[in-house]
């Protein structure tokens, strides 16, 4: 299968500026600190991690909403650079984004039609053709086309998310970046939207970069899962393998922290409790960023940063201890 998106050593740093009269930079927030991955056509990469790990920033860099500090993003073989105006516009036809907050990300004073048809304004469609397209995608996402003239604020959370999805797919993009699209929804609605994502992928064949903090959701929908911690990816593995054999210790702690809705299973599970909190991206720990909280940390972990190594077929981990263990 062909590689659709390739990200190499992506970095995004935000300078922290202080001062009234003379502004000086007193620090650097290393939101994304050297992230590399690839997404193949028709597959879903789940990017999972807790708040502050940089997953949202990564997604925004890929769509062009943020300009990377360094690194290479290649889409369908062509390198993207945000500074090149044409490159960005062309990209926007092939890559789309869906946001988390269904209430904040839609302009409440626009009708469903206006919102969904907005991406079409770039290409020259007349109103009739545009309307036909809008009705078509509304059908695809399970919205009644009768509601085409309703204002955004009249829809429920789940319906708004469907509108966002309709807007994202109307130009048939090859890659859709989904930034926590179901976190703000109720459980029963969440299930509907997750199913919708999978249905659409079957029908239209696009790929997803699915960003979320809910490991269960990510694992359900993804082909591959990448775990992020403090700006770096610590583990990449097929979703099926994730629960069976997590190698990185942060991944293990993360999985352990997710409760499974089954008391008999829960009773048997071994619980790992991490101490402390995620350090600030202003001042990440030296070497492996996870070492202060890792119960298996060795001396080398605080000195040198481990690189991503393929420790098993189709399983990449960034950890000195694991690397040594698996030879």
């Amino acid at each position, binding site marked *: 299968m062909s590689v659709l998106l390739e990200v190499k050593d992506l970095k995004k740093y935000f300078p922290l500026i202080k001062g009234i009269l003379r502004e000086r930079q007193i620090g650097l927030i290393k939101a994304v600190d050297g992230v590399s991955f690839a997404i193949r056509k028709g597959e879903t990469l789940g990017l999972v991690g807790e708040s502050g790990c940089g997953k949202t920033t990564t997604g925004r860099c890929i769509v062009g909403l943020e300009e990377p500090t360094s690194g290479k993003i290649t889409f369908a073989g062509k390198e993207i650079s945000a500074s090149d105006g044409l490159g960005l516009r062309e990209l926007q036809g092939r890559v789309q984004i869906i946001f988390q907050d269904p209430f904040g990300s839609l302009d409440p004073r626009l009708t469903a039609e206006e919102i969904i048809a907005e991406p079409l304004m770039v290409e020259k469609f007349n109103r009739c053709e545009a309307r036909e397209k809008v009705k078509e995608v509304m059908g695809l996402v399970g919205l009644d086309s009768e509601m085409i003239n309703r204002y955004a604020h009249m829809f429920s959370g789940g319906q708004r998310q469907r509108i966002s999805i309709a807007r994202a797919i109307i130009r048939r993009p090859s890659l859709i970046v989904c930034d926590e699209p179901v976190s703000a929804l109720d*459980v029963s609605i969440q299930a509907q939207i997750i199913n919708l994502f999978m249905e659409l992928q079957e029908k239209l064949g696009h790929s997803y970069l699915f960003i979320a903090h809910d490991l269960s959701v990510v694992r359900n*929908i993804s082909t591959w899962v990448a775990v992020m911690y403090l700006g770096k990816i610590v583990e990449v593995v097929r979703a099926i393998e994730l629960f069976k054999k997590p190698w990185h210790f942060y991944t293990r702690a993360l999985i352990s922290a997710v409760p499974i809705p089954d008391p008999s299973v829960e009773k048997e599970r071994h619980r790992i*409790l991490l101490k402390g909190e995620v350090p600030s991206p202003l001042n990440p720990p030296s070497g492996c960023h996870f070492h202060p909280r890792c119960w298996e940390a060795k001396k080398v972990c605080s000195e040198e940063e481990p690189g991503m190594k393929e420790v098993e077929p189709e399983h990449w981990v960034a950890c000195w201890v694991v690397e040594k263990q698996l030879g």
Partner: protein
Amino acid sequence: MMEGGLKVQDLCTYFFGRTSINKAVDGISYEVWTGEIMAIVGESGCGKTVSALSLIQLNPPGSQIVRGQVLWKGRDLLRMGSDEICRIRGKEISMVFQEPLTALNPIQTIGQQIAEVFQTHERLDKKEAERKTIEMLEAVAMPDAEKRAKSYPFQLSGGMRQRAMIAMALSCKPDLLIADEPTTAVDVTIQAQLLELIASLAKEVKTTVILITHNLGIVARYASKIVIMYAGKIVEKGDTPTLYAHPRHPYTISLLKAIPRLDQESGKKLVTIDGQPPPLDHRLPSGCSFHPRCLYASKKCKEEFPPFRPISDNHEVACWFVEG
């Protein structure tokens, strides 16, 4: 009912608007035994938060507790005067809220806010209150407790703020702790830490816990008893193993099937419930409010809300279909 337990009977809290009545809580009854952790589960809008607030007469402005009894240590909490209920709040019954950033006073240090509990109930002088505050912060594993006591809420992370709230709630060693979605706003590893903390502290001091949540995973891990709410009413209640193994109400069954599980195959389609939870005003479906979304709905379901029928010792369901 044992000493220290809570018995809720036919609690009804309605919101009175200009044109309609919103029946946020419509006749719920349950019992919690001393020392156990009971979970009230439901989606947003089902009334679980309002029902919990009503227990200590904290129901939101614009609403009124229309009916019901909340029996606590032989007295009815709903019939108490404001002086009496103020003595109980924070001392015998405490609450932890969902979003600690808005639930804390932004211009007071968290030390001051925790000390306020001691000053209100135990009449301690300033030094004593400060000392006990730091003790509490250490008990909730707040890093750098002394320093944090002098910090303002905006200076702390979400996890630390929630720890401060837990410290505040447990200061006077209450007999009952009501935790309203205490971990919804924090990361999953912090969630694990906080819940373990609540569970272990509660065990230590023999505090009863009512845990309100929509997360059926947390419930499976921590709760011994569950109450499922839908559209202002309880539809099923029972002890945890039974409910998960043999759910009977169609809503409960669908809810359990709709959650993605970490230990299941990936790529599998989730079983969904069509439609969405109904609004609680005049548009509320008649009879059993779940009937428009229920696969097994019959004519009777539209007419009357079913009574509770015991399935087994610790399991009750309100459903015409289950009844047979």
